[in-house]
């Protein structure tokens, strides 16, 4: 490990990352349990199910992967669907990149990229501090990754889900987390508020067009994010100013 070893000075930011990731972990557990259950009930072997959570670590892709597999889709179709579903992470990775400490080695960036999900991105990118450190994001990603994997095992082994009413209420957890991060960050910023309204409006519109429904399920988020952020950058070009 050598220079990669975390020393005591990194422990503080690491633990802060873990703490910041707790809402993500809480939201992931019920979804991961549901994934473990779905995989089991569709006859996916346990080694494959837990490998998916270890090596893919992307909720939507794993659910779609198992469903397509059960439907008898070709492997190239599943891989293409996975790729399209995750293209939005390209934008998120690009957006997070300038926020990472300039002296972060590339191998550290490669490790952090492994844990980039919608949820870890939302927590990291809306942090008030301008620069984010390697141990902070590592802690955030690790707690999220652990919860996702523990949940997958639990779903597969227990073989029963949470009671219906609990599952339904927990279904809102990650959305509530997004609201909890987004509203305080956007409410005092006119440009941010405009971008938020644009993105939500465009995505709702795309989803409401029935002919585009299947098309927009993988592209809608990418299209509405790019459009809203681009319009924001055109309307409010002040460089260097905080959003």
């Amino acid at each position, binding site marked *: 490990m050598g220079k990669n070893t975390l020393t005591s000075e990194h422990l503080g930011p690491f633990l802060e990352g873990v703490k910041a990731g707790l*809402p993500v972990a809480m939201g992931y557990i019920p979804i991961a349990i549901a994934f473990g259950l779905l995989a089991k009930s569709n006859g*996916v*072997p346990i*080694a*494959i199910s837990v*490998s998916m959570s270890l*090596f893919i*670590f*992307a909720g939507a*892709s794993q659910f779609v992967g198992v469903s397509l597999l059960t439907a008898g889709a070709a492997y190239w179709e*599943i*891989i293409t669907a996975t790729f399209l579903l*995750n293209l939005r*992470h390209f*934008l*998120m*990775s*690009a*957006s*997070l*990149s*300038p926020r*990472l400490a300039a002296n972060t080695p*590339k191998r550290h*960036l490669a490790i952090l*990229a*492994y844990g*980039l999900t*919608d949820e870890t991105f*939302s927590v990291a*990118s*809306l942090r008030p501090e301008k620069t984010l450190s390697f141990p902070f994001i590592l802690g955030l990603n690790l707690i999220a990754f652990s919860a996702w994997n523990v949940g997958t095992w639990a779903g597969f082994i227990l073989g029963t889900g949470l009671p219906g*009413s*609990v599952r*339904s*209420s*927990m279904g*809102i*957890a990650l*959305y*509530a*987390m*997004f*609201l*909890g991060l987004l509203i305080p960050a*956007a409410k005092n910023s006119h440009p*941010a508020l405009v*971008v938020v309204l*644009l*993105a*939500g409006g465009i*995505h709702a519109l795309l989803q409401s067009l029935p002919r585009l429904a299947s098309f927009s399920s993988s592209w809608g*988020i990418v299209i*509405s*994010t790019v459009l*809203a952020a681009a319009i*924001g950058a055109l309307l409010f*070009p002040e*460089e260097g100013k905080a*959003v």
Partner: protein
Amino acid sequence: MKSLALLVLGMGLVTYIPRMLPMVLLGKVNLHPFLSRFLQFIPFAALSALIVPGILSSTNSTTSAVAGGVAASILAFFRLNVMFVVLGGILGVFFWELWLTP
């Protein structure tokens, strides 16, 4: 089993590449001011597109999702810790479904 393992690796690869490329390659590049501003707005745009309209189908019924969403939004507006916002959203849905759903 062996081909399934290859499928998982393939899915892992096409998931990792879009996550990794910008972060590793963009590092010290000087971005055009427009692109830099564009990237600053991505978190706001992406989160909003993730919430709307997905939140409406996240629970057993649209009305309970709205109840949970409103509860979470009010707590978020007053800058409560995100953990409490999440709990508020969950409880909002739970009690709506318990009391107000036939």
